[in-house]
């Protein structure tokens, strides 16, 4: 049997980790969108 408080913490940590990864991916995507929109060629 898992305690309610433990389950809350587990889910919050899991969601925080996923949110962090998504935000990171979004920053990278925005960087590449900016590069593409400004027409910079590597």
């Amino acid at each position, binding site marked *: 049997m898992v305690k309610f408080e433990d389950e809350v913490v587990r889910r919050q940590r899991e969601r925080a980790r996923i949110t962090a990864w998504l935000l990171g991916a979004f920053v990278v*995507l925005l960087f590449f969108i900016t590069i593409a929109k400004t027409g910079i060629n590597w």
Partner: protein
Amino acid sequence: MPSIEMTNPAALPADWRDIVALTKPRVMSLVVFTGLCGMLAAPQLPPLVLGFTAILCIALAAGACGALNQWYEADLDAKMRRTAKRPLPDGRMDRQSALHFGVGLGAFSVLLMGLATNWLAAVLLAVSILFYVLVYTVWLKPRTPQNIVIGGAAGAFPPLIGWVAATGHFATLPLLLFAIIFLWTPPHFWALSMFVRSDYAAAGIPMLPVVAGIQNTRKQIFFYSLPMAAAAAAPWALGLTGPIYGAAATGLSLAFVVLAALVLASSAAKPSEMRAEKRLFGFSVLYLFALFAALVADRWLVW
């Protein structure tokens, strides 16, 4: 998953799997595919990252529609066997979170589309979300058996959005792609609603088989398959596509009409005996995938 020492799961923060389930990932796959095909059929392609972002935005908007649909229909979903185990009716998530998630995701997808591609594509994306949520889910679905006929327009937007994201303007071909999905939706959904009609009846949703009876629905399925087949052939007949698409559209549409005719000829009354309807429903999904795949193959290999 271990059991939890509590009685009200909605008091917990939602599990991320339930948040994903809220976006109806399986429906999203067809939306993303048709959007991608609309983009790949365009005469010019955007840079890879912008094309990827446009498709991502279409997927996120579809997810927002799924979330807002489930938020609004949580009570109805609880009455239907097919949907009773969704996160909201099953009590694994609270409605307020679903509403916030859906609105946030929808707004984010529109803004990102506008910033990454063009604002015409963003406006179309916003219109498709609002049409699905307000016109179809809130207004038409609980009121009229024609819900899926008019509401089908919401699912027809993705190829148009994909094209506009790539080119920045409308053209005849993406409008025909819109028409194909628009006319495909009624026979596709009515075939499904034939063998789950007791679910719709239990929830009080006036789907055609519930309101007009199954024989009448069989006629409508067949009659709608004819203009759908004509719309599918139109891009080739008008010279907008080449022979690969022409052959695929002719063969696939002929098969669709034959299967719809078998539905018309069927007299099965029990869902377990509705083999013709189940076959048409299964084929209708394959039909759309194959037709749009042929469109892209034609554009890149022949045209």
